[in-house]
């Protein structure tokens, strides 16, 4: 039944595995799997956001070091960069083996959360190995934001924390973008396709759209990014259609 499958566009995601995360004098990632974080760089991401952010600090957490306190987990972010084309087609590079964990609290100790807060022992506060969480053997970089008093409960404060974190991730994106295509550790090809004659199915995703820690951004310049993105709230919460490839190329940024 039906005609042949018609391919509309192709997305290639090349993954580069990071095997070691360590402190260094620069925020740097190399093709051979070493990522270094400059502890002193944390101050520069709050620049221009002092109204909302009091302090930012980093931690590198290796798989065997999860038995430690964390502030509430606002988001878990892959480090991905667009190499060729727009979100949804062309080539994207992404890192595996390490993920950025955005955590938040304010200066008087109020955790940055909407409903239910995940602060506590990191070993226990996360179910590892799910689609949205790091795997058992993955390293984490926590980007821990201390917001000004009360700013963790308003949309502008939470958005500023995401923006600061995105600026940090961008430094790695600029390097990851230049990695040689043939040095990747995994390569995945995805196609937006039409399957004539088959049942036509639509996925509807109902997402947050009411304010601080209850927001969703779309259409950033970079995969899973913030810069250039638009909030579903600012779009009146109206339905917006994205292609499967746009979706799997990180067109959504969870702001809850």
């Amino acid at each position, binding site marked *: 039944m039906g005609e042949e499958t018609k391919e509309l566009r192709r997305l290639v995601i090349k993954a580069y595995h990071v095997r070691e995360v360590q402190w260094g004098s620069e925020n740097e990632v190399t093709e051979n799997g070493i990522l270094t974080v400059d502890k002193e760089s944390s101050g520069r991401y709050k620049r221009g956001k002092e109204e909302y952010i009091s302090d930012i600090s980093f931690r590198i957490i290796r798989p065997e070091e999860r038995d430690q306190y964390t502030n509430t987990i606002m988001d878990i972010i892959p480090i991905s960069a667009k190499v060729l084309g727009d979100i949804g087609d062309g080539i994207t590079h992404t890192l595996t083996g390490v993920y950025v964990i955005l955590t938040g609290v304010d200066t008087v100790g109020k955790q940055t959360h909407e409903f*239910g807060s995940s602060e506590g022992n990191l070993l226990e506060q996360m179910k590892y190995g799910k689609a949205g969480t790091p795997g058992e053997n993955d390293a984490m970089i926590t980007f821990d934001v201390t917001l000004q008093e009360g700013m963790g409960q308003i949309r502008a404060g939470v958005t500023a924390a995401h923006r600061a974190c995105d600026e940090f991730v961008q430094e790695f994106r600029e390097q990851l973008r230049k990695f040689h295509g043939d040095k990747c550790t995994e390569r995945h090809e995805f196609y937006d396709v039409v399957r004539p004659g088959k049942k*036509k199915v639509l*996925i*509807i995703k109902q997402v*947050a759209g009411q304010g601080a820690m209850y927001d969703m951004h779309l259409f950033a310049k970079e995969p899973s990014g913030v810069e250039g993105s638009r909030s579903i709230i600012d779009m009146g*919460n109206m339905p917006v259609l994205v292609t499967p490839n746009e979706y799997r190329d990180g067109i959504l940024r969870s702001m809850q």
Partner: protein
Amino acid sequence: MGIGPSTKETTLHNFRDPLLDVVAADEELDLMGVLIVGTPQDQQDKVLVGTRAAVWAEGMRADGVIISADGWGNSDVDYTNTIEQLGKRNIPVVGIHFTGTAAQFVVTNPYMDTIVDMNKNPEGIETNIVGENAVDRIDARKATAMLKLKMRKR
């Protein structure tokens, strides 16, 4: 109520969403896209955006819809309305939702007979453990199988 740690979909979750993977890989289905719809505060706005989503599905001549919800409680008003609007337009719909013991729907309608409960907690509650109740491949497969059955019966 809103979005809790155990059900919330992180940016990483959206980057490698099992629901999209399962539906897109199914060669018996022609996945048209993903419609992202928000959850406004105002009651009239809730009805408006959900109805527009259903109109999109009708206009696209969807044979079926899978609708997932990030969060529960207040946003169930939006969710039940969108399902009702799809149902009224004779579009088979299957939901994925956190229900457990903590989040039974307050209001339902006749089109809500196929909702996959994404709860994985033994007590059926939202918890403060990130990722615990989030949608996985099994939830996605259940929803896809239910939708196929529902489309066939139509």
